[in-house]
């Protein structure tokens, strides 16, 4: 399918919802892709199941702290350079690009690449949500190497990184991203069509679009947008969504460090205690009076209490009235191998993973 201009806002809203507070400002991502379409670019979204086994696919993304992105917007050339340099390094042209995560700007960066280069973007990603670190990919869980990786900045500087392990790739590339000002643009996990089909979380772009559309429809018809999401999720591989908490943001502790946006937000309920959420780009764990209500890799998203618009971590502000939702992720993301990479231990949390149960 070809991406239509009036689908962009729905896509960005839904992607930010699945992005668990991270993935970068969806507004900036949306503006980039709108501009690309206005200038005559086209974005063809293709089904992963239609890929030939032996084509080359190169995913693309922004890497760094969302708090940097909202000031230092991309030039737009960084990711094109990373993509071109990786093709040159591999001495092969890519057939398509795709997201490594669903969330804010990282759903639309591959579309920007697609529009500029005239290649398709695949309706799938490697996280099924957003995670802060680039080794936290279902690609890696199933044996795909993130290397070689190309990383570029707005000045034209770039590097090719070949790491033995995906964890080392994250560590080394993060160091470069910090030197690039805390936000950089990457092309990585070069892989075959067969690998995409076997290791990705499928149909997440169209899912994001549908979630965004249902929220907008609910708003327009005066229905409850939260109920619209909760009613829709059981039709998808994200089987369960529920409301965790409603209240007012009373504290935001947030810094840009180690190439991430790190901190915690405290939300006071009307008469039900307070909820504390820790984040590293994405929301990781929600505790109410010390008790864990939701934990990674399940999705925790903070939303505007009236409109259900997702609020990414970099835009949390004192006084906001919010509703917090949790969503259970697809099974491919909760296998023991997956949990080793992006379960609670992957983030140094003491608490064990707990599956979500319906109330």
């Amino acid at each position: 399918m070809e991406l239509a201009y009036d689908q962009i806002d729905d896509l960005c809203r839904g992607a930010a919802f699945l992005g668990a507070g991270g993935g970068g400002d969806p507004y900036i991502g949306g503006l980039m892709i709108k501009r690309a379409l206005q200038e005559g670019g086209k974005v063809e979204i293709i089904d992963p199941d239609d890929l030939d086994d032996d084509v080359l696919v190169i995913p693309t993304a922004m890497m760094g702290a969302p708090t940097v992105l909202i000031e230092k917007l991309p030039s737009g050339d960084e990711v094109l350079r990373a993509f071109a340099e990786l093709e040159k390094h591999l001495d092969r042209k890519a057939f398509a690009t795709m997201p490594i995560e669903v969330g804010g700007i990282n759903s639309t960066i591959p579309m920007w690449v697609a529009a500029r280069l005239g290649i398709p973007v695949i309706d799938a990603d490697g996280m099924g949500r957003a995670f802060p670190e680039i080794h936290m990919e279902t690609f890696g869980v199933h044996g795909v190497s993130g290397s070689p990786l190309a990383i570029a900045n707005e000045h034209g500087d770039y590097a090719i990184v070949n790491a033995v392990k995906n964890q080392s790739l994250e560590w080394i590339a993060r160091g470069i991203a910090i030197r690039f000002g805390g936000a950089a643009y990457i092309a990585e996990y070069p892989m075959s069509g067969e690998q995409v089909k076997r290791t990705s979380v499928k149909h997440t772009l169209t899912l994001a679009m549908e979630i965004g559309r249902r929220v907008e429809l609910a708003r327009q018809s005066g229905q409850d947008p939260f109920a619209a999401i909760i009613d829709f999720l059981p039709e998808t591989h994200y089987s369960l969504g529920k409301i965790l908490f409603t209240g007012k943001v009373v504290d935001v502790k947030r810094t840009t460090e180690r190439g991430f946006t790190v901190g915690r937000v405290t939300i006071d309920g009307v008469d039900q205690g307070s909820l504390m959420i820790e984040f590293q780009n994405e929301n990781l764990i929600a505790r109410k009076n010390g008790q864990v209500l939701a934990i990674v890799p399940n999705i925790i998203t903070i939303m505007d209490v009236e409109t259900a618009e997702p609020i990414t971590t970099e835009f949390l502000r004192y006084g906001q009235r919010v509703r917090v939702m949790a969503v259970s992720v697809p099974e491919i993301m909760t296998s023991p191998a997956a949990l080793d990479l992006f379960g609670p231990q992957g983030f140094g949390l003491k608490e064990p993973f707990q599956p979500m149960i319906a109330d």
Partner: protein
Amino acid sequence: MRIGVDVGGTNTDAVVMQDTTVRAWNKSPTTLDVSTGVRHAISSVIATSEIIASEIDSVMIGTTHFTNAVIERKHLLEVAVIRLGLPATASVPPMTDWPRDLSQAVGRHIFMLKGGYEFDGRPISELDEDEVRACAHKIKSLNLKAAAITGVFSPVNNDMEQAVCNILREINPDLQVSLSHEIGQVGLLQRENSTILNAALSDLAAHVVNSFERALIELGITAPFYISQNDGTLMQAHFIRRYPVLTFASGPTNSMRGAALLANLSDAMVVDIGGTTSDIGMLRNGFPRQSTTFVDVGGVRTNFRMPDILAIGLGGGSLVEDEGRAIGPQSVGFELLEKALVFGGDTLTATDIAVASGRPGIGDCKLVAHLPPTTVRGAQETMRLKLDRAIDRMKTEAGLLPVVIVGGGAILVDWDLTTASEIVLPKYGPVANAIGAAIAQVAGEVDRIVSLEGSSREEVLELAKAEAIEKAITAGAIHETIDIVEIEEVPIAYLPGNATRLRVKAVGDLAISAPFK
């Protein structure tokens, strides 16, 4: 004695308030030059209340002029829009998603220059002085009067914005320059948008503030005058000359606070019915409920916090069609006094329905005697449905709330609402806006760079909150009414000692604004 004034698009309202009592009120048409309308409204309330100019302690003015100018795309200057950040930021140039008619009104004079900072204070690129000078000369040749300068991470370091401002002024001494770090927070696009709108309003700001001043001088009033801003607090008038965008949405804030006072309610739905639209907002603990996400002004995303308002097309001038089954959003607007049936016109409006159903004292009721009762009842039912639906959308929880109806169009309502526990129609409801201006709040603000080394962040925050509250009390706020409305921390990585720019704002009621008797 205080005078509260609300300068709206259609009417200019004034009230004289002695402590907690309305001594006099007046509603006059807004005039093109602003000044005449303000002078007329104030002089008539002074006459009715039989006070003399020297008894007036202060004058508080709320105005929707600047919001209306943006919405109507009128009286806007063309602006040199300067962004410092290249080679970064090029993927989304300034004004990318502005409505076309608005970006045309401010021109499309975009200058993207080298400069800006990284989050840790290193420059992205150094300023190129030749490039800045070339830009300054271009501004001169285009004969632009206003400029908006936005640098990447200027809330962390504003040196480059200042440096560019100095060069522009050296070449264009009369240029009115708006600097983004004085206007908004972190978030480049939202801050840039607000800065551009501020620059576009520069001339109008001078004109409006001068008009207020002239009106007061001509009336012999020497008391200080203030203008209300977004969050319901007062600003010195001269401040508005430089930052007119800070008045956006002060209108709804004033009317909601006025309604809270008149109805003596702290939790209620407020419906402000004007000539063309009704604004619906919610009072929580006496404060207008704020919008959480970014607020659009005239189709442009800004970073201001504003009351969460739902506007629907229902007002005193709304057209009634199809035997009452359709009402609004079209309206006769300020031509109500010529066009409505009760005033001898030929257009059936919502006001005519109110008169036909027995509302006394408006126009000539004989002119609507011919309306079929089915049309009158049908129209009332349509209005009720419209309001019920809108109120339902604004509600955040189950259960009924009192609904306070204010504004010039409050006369439309003499029926029940299924969404209301009760309907409150306060006596001075038509001038709730001006009353809201007169009882506007005062703020105490702390804005400084603190070190988080050696003390816990919680301690530093608590100290800053206490200091902001202390400042609000010094400014005249009642202690029990003070609320912390904003806390913002911007880490300054290039300074030692875990430095953070900390901004805390506390807001409270001025000591004399106790509930109405």
